[in-house]
């Protein structure tokens, strides 16, 4: 896998839309992005305002707080993803939240967000996630109930040579010693970093 820990990302000329009901929290993200070299950052406080911005302007990435509009932030993301005529359907979307309960993280993943960034965020943690989205693009998957980035992170190999995708590689691993973890157990290991 490509090591991007020290990779630089070029944000000049890109447009960001921050959708956060809290103007002060939005100011922090805005300031961090400007520090990274972003030249166009637009803020919206409501889904309606965000839709207006998306109608009028070209936006390259959106960061959304799920507490938007009394907790309807994730529904807002889902509405963009599920609309086949929406030009921003495949735009990268990050969920920015102080609520890092497992249920919230899963809901963010299932609404079609690319990544979750925990608030309060540090410049390094946001940089790392922007870098990940840029250097590890994921295919989008469309099913009857989901449209968004592939929720399976690529794996390097499975016991017994069983791969889930043609592109998955093989790695030498130890013999299995017990039952495999359930999906819930695996999901519980997926934590957002500050």
């Amino acid at each position: 896998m490509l090591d991007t820990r020290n990779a630089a990302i070029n944000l000049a000329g890109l447009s960001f839309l921050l959708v956060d009901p809290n103007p002060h929290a939005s100011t922090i993200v805005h300031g961090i992005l400007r520090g990274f070299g972003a030249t166009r950052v637009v803020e919206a406080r409501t889904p309606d305002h965000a839709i207006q911005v998306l109608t009028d302007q070209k936006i390259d990435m959106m960061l959304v707080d799920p507490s938007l509009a009394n907790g309807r932030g994730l529904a807002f993301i889902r509405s963009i993803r599920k609309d086949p005529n929406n030009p921003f359907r495949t735009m990268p979307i990050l969920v920015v939240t102080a609520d890092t309960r497992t249920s919230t993280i899963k809901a963010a993943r299932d609404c079609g967000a690319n990544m979750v960034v925990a608030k309060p965020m540090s410049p390094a943690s946001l940089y790392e996630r922007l870098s990940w989205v840029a250097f590890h693009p994921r295919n989008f998957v469309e099913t009857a109930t989901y449209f968004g980035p592939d929720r399976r992170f690529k794996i390097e190999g499975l016991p017994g040579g069983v791969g889930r995708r043609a592109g998955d590689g093989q790695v030498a691993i130890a013999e299995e010693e017990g039952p495999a973890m359930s999906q819930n157990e695996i999901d519980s290991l997926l934590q957002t970093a500050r």
Partner: protein
Amino acid sequence: MKAVSNGTHREIEVDDDFGRQARSPGALPRDDAIERAHAELTRLKPQLEEHVKLQCQQLEAALLAARARDEKHLVHIADAYAASLSIRDIADSIGHSLVGFIAANLCTIIETADAAHMDYPAAVIDCHCDALRLALSPPYLGKPLRELPELSAGLSQTVRITKAMAERVAAAAAAPPAAKAS
């Protein structure tokens, strides 16, 4: 965009403008970009500190008012929750980690009680009110959380107790009527 379909799902290869531009040459070196972002936060700190200070005053007032357990109790808790949310999102980013921690705990406690449809745990909330007053006093103001391990461990313990109480309330509510009677 290239798409591959297998009947139950369709996989679409996406190469968006963000990725193309972000990977292009001419970027600020990573460490410089992060340093500049920290400088931006330093520039914003006075205005954010003013906001946190105001929210802390509102939070403290709401928590003290909530101690009366009068007919406006739910209003005071709602006010405390709104102030806590606002502080939680910001305080840590400008170096007020203790205040941010207390606010985050209060959000968790109130959300947990709401989700379980149980009474707000008065003793736990009062405990956080006292911790907030301490955090806002001169010797503690701006002190990093890592320098107060006993205080943070104690407060975390009260949050765990609240969650355990909520689980018991939820389990009791879900139990069949016969089990409830016994």
